[in-house]
């Protein structure tokens, strides 16, 4: 298979580069190969969009579950503070 054909077919490598670029650096050559691939591959163009949106959604999910009312029960908290006070008094 020719060099160009390999780039055009290889979605596994293209999606790898999409992920790597979104979080780190890829080389100039890799960036070129990814661009060539994306021009011809509608699957990977969809993947690229979805990948970015998934990142944002995962972040939102974590943020919203942090804000959700997840409270420790009062007894547990009371005992915990007692434990801390005990430790403080030891010193």
């Amino acid at each position: 298979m020719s060099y160009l054909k390999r780039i055009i077919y290889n979605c596994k490598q293209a999606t790898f580069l999409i992920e790597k670029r979104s979080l780190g650096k890829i080389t100039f050559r890799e960036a070129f190969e990814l661009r060539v691939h994306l021009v011809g591959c509608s699957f990977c163009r969809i993947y690229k969009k979805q990948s970015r949106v998934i990142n944002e959604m995962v972040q939102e999910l974590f943020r919203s579950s942090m804000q959700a009312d997840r409270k420790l029960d009062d007894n547990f908290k009371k005992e915990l503070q007692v434990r801390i006070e005990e430790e403080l008094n030891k010193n």
Partner: protein
Amino acid sequence: MDHQLNPHHWVAAHADYLFGFAITRINDEELAKDLVQETFLAALEKVAKFEGKSSERTWLTAILKNKIIDVYRKKSSGLQNKMVKEAEDEQSDFFNADDGHWINNNGPKEFGIEDKDRLVSREFELIMQKCLQKLPALWMSVFTMKHIDEEATEVICTELKVTSANFWVIIHRAKLNLRACLQRSWI
């Protein structure tokens, strides 16, 4: 002005926050409670070393993060290897082994999340949670540390004992499985 520590109000001021932080990352209520307790006790021993450069909450959260990483490490050894194997096997359905092209039926299709200004429904959130939980613990740990906690790649590699090459493979695989699970469950 330098920050101060006041252990007498730790529980009232930070326990719920730390609990929420832990449970979104490890998804186990009992374990999350234990970690909150361990965090305070470990913090008491470090009070003398506190330099006042960060807020009390940031400082406590950093201690908790280390405890969570210990959990990640334990979870991703031993039995978990089987889960990694299964998750990797799933991927042989994604790409043609010869040329790396998507296998037609499993290739990405638009399923309504491509628009940036979409309205994310509660239903979709639940599917996302379910799909995240299917990831092997090591992949989930790497993914969370990078995407949510925005840790430096070198830090994650050191803490979780993965090579830099393997780190990128995991980031890629975690996203492939997550995306495929969303597409399967949502369409």
